[in-house]
């Protein structure tokens, strides 16, 4: 990937590194807290895939919308959902970004148009179609970014949603996080054709595939993709990536070898980006150190916030089954 001049100022590079590290350190803490039984339920971490959410979401504007999966802590963080509210959610506290009702798989945030946190694989795709349709019908310039795994590309809703997006010319950015596995099923057992982006061609949808471990590459391609979508047409961006950790906390990882995992870890997106920026003289080791400290403080404060959180009263259990008030 060529290095477009002027894009990566020191400020921007620090910010990119900061986002990558926020996800990494936040989730490392989550795993720790899971082991300490502070977090329960299913926990799916994004470690290894941080460059995707970072590279894509940083291109969005505040009026844009995001639909994500159950592996969405990273997306929520980059989008600007407060780390404290996310952590409190995983604690099941009332101060959580879904008042403790959602947990790790169901983060929501109205303020940043973060529409979940969907734990039905493929289930978010039609929602993104509808959000984009609403923007279009109301002549709002918004882009809806919809994240999903390559496993979701086998579901019928993927096909149905791409068809609608193309037919109706909807401003949806489909972001396929192709990490080569759906739980323990390798892509060769999931999909007849091993790359996802060309599937868009069957609908006449513009598409690209990019090295999802390389923030510089994702950043560049995602920028062009978002521009395309903002002009009013869908785009499918496939990011080739890898999850370094188990699928969830209940995964013996019988389906892949340690050496395969290690070979991918050699392309850790954080180290790749740091090295690149330092080689180009844009960042220094001190930058990395400072960003790490800032991130550590944020994570610590998030944990503190969650710890101090309160439990929703039991009598409020039936609340929110139906809407309580007129939404704006």
């Amino acid at each position, binding site marked *: 990937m060529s290095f477009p001049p002027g894009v990566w100022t020191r400020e921007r590079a620090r910010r990119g590194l900061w986002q990558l590290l926020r996800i990494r350190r936040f989730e490392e803490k989550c795993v720790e807290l899971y082991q300490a039984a502070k977090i329960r339920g299913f926990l799916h971490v994004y470690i290894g895939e941080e460059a995707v959410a970072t590279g894509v979401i940083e291109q969005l504007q505040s009026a844009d*919308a995001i*639909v994500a999966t159950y592996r969405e802590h990273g997306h929520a963080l980059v989008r600007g959902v407060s780390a404290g509210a996310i952590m409190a959610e995983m604690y099941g506290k009332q101060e*959580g*970004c*879904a*008042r*403790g*009702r*959602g947990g790790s798989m*169901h983060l*929501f*945030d*109205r303020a940043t148009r973060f*529409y*979940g*946190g*969907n734990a*039905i694989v493929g*289930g978010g*795709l*039609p*929602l*993104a*179609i*509808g*959000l*984009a*349709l*609403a*923007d279009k*019908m*109301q002549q709002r310039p918004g882009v809806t970014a919809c994240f999903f795994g390559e496993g979701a590309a086998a579901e*019928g*809703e993927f096909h*149905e*949603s791409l*068809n*609608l997006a193309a*037919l109706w010319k909807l401003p949806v950015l489909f972001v396929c996080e192709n990490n080569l596995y759906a739980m323990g099923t390798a892509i060769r057992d999931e999909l007849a054709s091993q790359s996802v982006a060309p599937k868009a061609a069957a609908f006449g949808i513009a598409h690209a595939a990019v090295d999802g471990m390389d923030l510089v590459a994702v950043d560049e391609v995602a920028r062009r993709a978002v521009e395309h979508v903002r002009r009013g047409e869908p785009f499918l961006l496939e990011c080739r990536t890898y999850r370094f950790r188990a699928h969830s906390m209940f995964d013996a990882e019988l389906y892949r070898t340690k050496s395969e995992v290690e070979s991918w870890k050699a392309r850790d997106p954080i180290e790749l980006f740091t090295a690149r920026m330092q080689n180009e003289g844009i960042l220094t080791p001190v930058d990395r150190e400072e960003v790490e400290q800032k991130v550590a403080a944020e994570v610590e404060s998030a944990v503190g916030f969650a710890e101090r959180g309160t439990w929703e009263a039991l009598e409020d259990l039936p*609340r*929110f*089954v*139906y*809407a*309580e*008030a*007129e*939404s704006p």
Partner: protein
Amino acid sequence: MSQVTSAKETITYREAVREAIREALRTDPRAFIMGEDVGHYGGCFAVTRGLLEEFGSERVRDTPLCESAFVGAGIGAALGGMRPIVEIMTVNFSLLALDQIMNSAATLCHMSGGQFSVPLVIRMATGGGKQLAAQHSHSLEGWYAHIPGIVVAAPGTIDDARWMLAAALERLDPVLIFENQTLYNQKGCLSDSPQRDLAHAAVRRTGRNATAVTYGASLGKTLEAAELLQAAGIELEVVDLRVLRPLDDATIMQSVAKTHRVLIVDEGWRSGGLSAEISARIMEQAFYELDAPVARLCAAEVPLPYAKHLEEAALPQVDSIVAAVRKLVGADG
């Protein structure tokens, strides 16, 4: 397209639904309707005929065949500030969209801690009686009423066909409206006092000897049966549920307290159907009022067959309602 607004003209149930949709599209710029063949075809039951010409293809939006995606798109559009009316041709096809309905529409408000709501209306045809066989005839509205987070309505009269949609669109929750296919050609007058109510059951006929609780297509049959029973000196009170979730317990129990005998008439299958829930609630709330066990008359537990005589035998009919009431009040000896 004739303009049907005067209360005194005779209109069909179909026209009443169409007027309701037209009113929504006229009065709320956020409202639009989408579904298979709602536009150029005019609606598979001709409900939406003429609306494409009046409102254009953006707001009367033909969709490809993809129930899951277009229902999900309705949810997303509702989240995005629109007021979608999604039409699914018949309830059997809605099963293709059930994941979106139960796992998304019904949960999003709760899962998000109240941040998001889904002001979506889904209309669909339901019910047997047209010899459409086992993939087009079921009555699953009572089954849908099991799902927390949605509202389920079943307009059984021309008035409700005309006014329930507006009430549904006023809510911020997903509302499913089930229109029984046998009712579309039913004719009648709109009453002078439109009832935009999505909370109450209605007593459609008063009587002393027994109560029939019903809704939808069985309402007409039950009223006919009441007429026949009247001739035999049996006064049947007829409660039209109107809204299947949440149920209006008070109206039901009031009638139980008056007649002490109850028959539930439901075109859904018996086991685990809505009829069971009503019986159970009466058990819980009015046990000591009962002079006889609550009885149920439901669809036979078969995938509905094509042949006319078999299909008729599978569904509650006027004569079987009469017989069930007679048995309930001990009129047969």
